[in-house]
């Protein structure tokens, strides 16, 4: 257990855990304001909310778990260092995704010629990420069928196969929940272009998913 303050405790359910205080109902922006006023439990709540999504965004971007871990941690550290710069002009999610995206771009530029382990590459424990996702899914819910696992594997491959600009927009909107207008701001691209990229990405995914029976069933 890591104690932050006398009235806040972190229960180590999975290395981090849940923040047991009254921040659960607060908006991200309000948590940020509280953190700027010295409430470190508010920051812990923000980490709890965004850790998983940011890590997966970075993972899809740089395709390396170690790099994704470092980049996620660095993104939160930049939030700490730049807390004073945060204004209510944009949402916290947009701000933190913009920070992480820039970090990912820097990372990709720096290691342009380095071969990172692809998501399809073999992991030390055996099996690719896609296989692991599928197997985890099976382990989590035994009732789900093989067809559904195949769909997820296919989806992961389809997302990885997207062009970088389309994948970026798709991940920001679908995974990060960042509105199109704010994606346009942080990528410095016109909003219509952002929407076009999203449309192309969805069309591609739709074509990839057509062969799966679950997709056809959902359409019915």
């Amino acid at each position: 257990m890591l104690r932050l303050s006398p009235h806040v405790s972190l229960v180590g359910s999975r290395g981090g855990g849940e923040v047991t205080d009254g921040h659960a109902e607060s908006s991200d922006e309000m948590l940020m304001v509280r953190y700027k006023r010295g409430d470190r439990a508010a920051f812990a709540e923000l980490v709890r909310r965004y850790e998983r999504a940011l890590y997966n965004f970075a993972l899809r971007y740089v395709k390396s778990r170690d790099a994704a871990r470092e980049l996620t941690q660095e993104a939160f550290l930049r939030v700490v260092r730049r807390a004073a710069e945060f204004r209510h002009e944009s949402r916290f999610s947009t701000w933190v995704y913009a920070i992480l995206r820039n970090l990912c771009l820097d990372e990709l530029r720096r290691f342009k010629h380095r071969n990172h382990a692809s998501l399809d590459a073999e992991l030390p424990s055996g099996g690719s990420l896609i296989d692991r996702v599928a197997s985890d899914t099976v382990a989590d819910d035994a009732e789900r069928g093989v067809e559904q696992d195949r769909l997820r594997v296919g989806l992961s491959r389809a997302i990885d196969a997207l062009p970088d600009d389309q994948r970026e927009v798709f991940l920001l909107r679908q995974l990060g929940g960042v509105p199109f207008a704010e994606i346009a701001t942080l990528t410095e691209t016109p909003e219509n272009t952002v929407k076009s990229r999203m449309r192309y990405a969805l069309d591609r995914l739709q074509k990839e998913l057509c062969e799966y029976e679950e997709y056809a069933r959902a359409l019915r």
Partner: protein
Amino acid sequence: MDCERFDKMSLDLLYDELDELTAAAARRHLHHCTRCQGVWTKLRVTRELSNPPLEEPPEDLFESILLAEQAAHKQLPFRERFGRTVSILAGYAMRPQLAMAALLLLMVGSSLVFLRASPSGLGRIGASELGAPSSEIVAEAKERTALVLGTEGSGDVEPTDVGARGSERLTAPGAAAEAPLGDAASTAKSDKEGYGEAMSAYQQGRYAEAERLFSEVAAAGGEKAAAAALHEAHAARNGSGCQRATALYDQVSGRYAGSTVADEAAWQAASCYQALGQIARARAHYQALAARPAYRTRAEQAMSALDPQVALAAKANAAKATDAAASPEDPTATSASGASPSEAKPAAPAAAKPSQPATSP
């Protein structure tokens, strides 16, 4: 809404980024348009099924982020840490409980300042109606040396001249002792010079000037302050009369309570009140002075001398009352109104005397 417009906003509808009106219009179009229904269904299902599978982050990521935050917080530049500290303090300061506590402290503090600033005893002016037990007045006078001002039956309290000028120079005798030692010599020197100058004016009969000069010396608060204040009252009495002097005597008596100067001022005030015909006030002062050994005999004599004055005053009041009651046609009443009650009484037998021989044989 047509199909072309629907295509443009289908993505916004898919991710709930449309306003209510436009979204309702788009749904109405969907309800009627088979072509757009097909497009929309494919988009919706693709969105629902294309949530990227999420991998769990490393187990220690959460803790390591918090530890890194702790370390980073310590490494922040001083300016930023100071800013955050100020922000934290401001956050606490803006809480209503603290604001209320600060307000309460401010009120208590300011009231203490005002209480300490007010002259002790002098600001309190007691008033008692005529006929109140004299023991109460005496007790009051003993308890606090501020003098009790009794009214002369009219019920109104005569305003004392404890005005702005008085309050400015109301410095306690101890105040001079608190002055810095370095200034003491020069203060004493100027004090003596000023006092000598004032006394010179007083002796030469320039009472207005003397009053002003004594007032300045008294306000300076030196060792001559008490004597100067008393002489200021003397000068006022000589220059302007008792009406003005009584207020000053009362001030001196209250300010230097317990000193010989205060007793002398009270004595002078009493004599002034006596001269003004305000017997109750004079008596109150004499009674207060009777408690002082140096003034006991004189005060008792003065009080005994007040009794005939009271009798005279009562006679005068009775005569006035008779005057008011008598009718103008009655010759006896007219004659009675011209004489004192003691003179009117023998007049009746005199008038009756001639009738007695007429009835006798």
